[in-house]
């Protein structure tokens, strides 16, 4: 409501200025993507041509995409990505939801301290942990396996934080009613809290899947076997070994890797926005 009211308060000039700023930022983010798609349908000669056009003179898309799919095990990479992201997400929700419930609705000694530690975990970039995690992975002998790609991410401070904030907005009476109805604490988490916090779960799912699908840093450290590689790492290897300076197929492969995420995001956009604001602003 207040957003609508403030929009009316802006003068025409301010409104134009605001749109210019938004358009410029939007363009800055979109142009590399457009360029990538444009390059993926251009012939090798045209890519390094002095003059620039978005649409190619000679449409070379089929050849590029064919090459991308045939010369690198792209489908294998995407399959890996799907499995790793799916398992990470499933395990994250499995662990985060009960933790968040405990932090939001149960009273126990040291709760605030534990929540403070979750917040500290939120601030820490994952890269800081890569060396200890690498050593841990080595000691557990899980390096160069799927487990090495998945396990470091299963506990997500962000997930715990997001769910906890959302669970806090659910009235205590609902939890009380569920206890009286005979639900155990875990049943309350899965049958009442998680379904009621669905927008937050979906928002978190998008964050998690996008983040881990695109992750290059940790897979680069954790796996060497090409059959285990997720898409970005696969493309990196593809670039070095197969493509060389053959940018057309490389860009085609990149486009194919980004595509599933784009579709998924557009489909879930509504929940994504709701989930991010829902925890912050209490209705």
């Amino acid at each position: 409501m207040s957003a609508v009211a403030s929009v009316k308060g802006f003068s025409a000039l301010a409104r134009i200025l605001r749109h210019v700023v938004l358009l410029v930022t939007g363009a800055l983010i979109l142009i590399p993507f457009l360029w990538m798609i444009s390059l993926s349908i251009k012939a090798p000669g045209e890519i390094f041509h002095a003059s620039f056009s978005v649409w190619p003179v000679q449409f070379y898309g089929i050849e590029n995409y064919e090459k991308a799919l045939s010369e690198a095990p792209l489908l294998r990479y995407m399959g890996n990505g799907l499995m790793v992201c799916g398992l990470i997400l499933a395990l994250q929700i499995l662990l985060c939801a009960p933790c968040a419930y405990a932090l939001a609705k149960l009273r126990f000694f040291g709760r605030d301290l534990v929540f403070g530690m979750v917040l500290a975990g939120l601030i820490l970039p994952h890269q800081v942990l890569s060396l200890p995690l690498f050593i841990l992975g080595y000691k557990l002998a899980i390096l160069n396996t799927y487990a090495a790609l998945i396990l470091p991410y299963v506990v997500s401070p962000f997930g715990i934080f997001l769910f906890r904030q959302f669970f806090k907005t659910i009235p205590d009476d609902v939890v009380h009613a569920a206890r009286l109805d005979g639900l155990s604490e875990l049943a309350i988490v899965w049958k009442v809290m998680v379904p009621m916090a669905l927008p937050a779960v979906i928002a978190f799912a998008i964050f998690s899947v996008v983040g881990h699908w695109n992750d290059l840093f940790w897979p680069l450290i954790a796996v060497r076997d090409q059959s285990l590689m997720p898409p970005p790492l696969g493309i990196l290897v593809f670039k070095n070994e197969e493509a060389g300076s053959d940018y057309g197929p490389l860009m085609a492969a990149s486009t194919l890797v980004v595509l599933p995420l784009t579709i998924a995001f557009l489909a879930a956009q509504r929940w994504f926005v709701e989930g991010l604001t829902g925890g912050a602003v209490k209705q």
Partner: protein
Amino acid sequence: MASVLIKSISKDYGQAPVLRSVSLAIADGEFLTLLGPSGCGKSTLLRILAGLEAQDAGSVSIGERVVDGVRPKRRDIAMVFQSYALYPHMSVASNIALPLRMRRLSALQRLPLLGRLLPTTAQIAEDIGVEVSRTAKSLGIGDLLSRKPGQLSGGQRQRVAVARAMVRHPAVFLMDEPLSNLDAKLRVQMRAEIKELHQRLGVTFVYVTHDQAEAMTLSDRVAVMLDGELLQVAPPQSIYSDPDNRRVAEFIGSPKINLLDGVMRERGLIDVAGSTIPIEADALAGTPLLLGIRPEALYFVAHAGQGVLTGSVRMVEHMGSDLFVHLDLAGIDQPLIARLLPERAPHIAPGQILHVGARPDRILLFTRDGRRLRREADPVCRHVAPFREAVG
């Protein structure tokens, strides 16, 4: 069916005591209301009864059984919440069915897909369905079973919450301000339905409210709570006409009871506001007293005399059937409010001098520290005009 026994329950939140050694015995099948202003601890007491919170001291028994430390679901109670606390993602039918599913189906049978394959699941689920629709029908929500709570009005949600509590036939019903989220008209209607429900089911009801009209109309007995203490537990009529102390007298009744400072002059006579009222009281001459006079215990008289209070009219409120007259008495800050019958009173205008008489048998005497000073003339429970609901 069960009686409820609450023994010396105490509860603190941090430093502040919320309940101070509250004891209460509730008979099997009784409708008992915990009445008090918000923050008096009545909801906390109800939650302790339900097992949703733990008391610091004392014990709770439900039907001979001490239930301290027993989980809420094992206490054989059901509760209706102020916010209804329905599960928004489930249909009305699933909301009502959940307590039965949790009790009758094993964990294995409740599994989403596998559960249905087990031999007895289908039969139990069908029985539950029959009971759910029967309960829903009895509350007039039979055609709403497939809807989600978000699509229902406040009154319908309330009924769903009651149905969810009713469906498993609890021994004790707990209700935490169930009507306070409804509009005034619906509240009166639902009040009647709750009364009817109690008569039909015959089980023990413990009802929490801050609304004295609800307490007075619904209850067999009212327990008045203030600041974590039970001040008086009695039938609505006695609470109103025979309060144990000044705080109960002040809390019950609208407009509020008039409290006038008086002094015992001699046996049988009390000086108050420039007048002398003949009342038999067991107090020495010179004892300061507090006179409690309900607005309807005052009546119009034409002339001043013994036992008549005189003041100038500050304000007149016409309520149709009644006339509330605010009188400024000499030497008293608070106006005296008198409820007069329009046909018995003359035309009254602000500024006018008016005489009102007080029925001596309806005057309540309190010591200055607020204790009730009972008189020999006080009957145990008088029959007076029935409690009237607050107007406006």
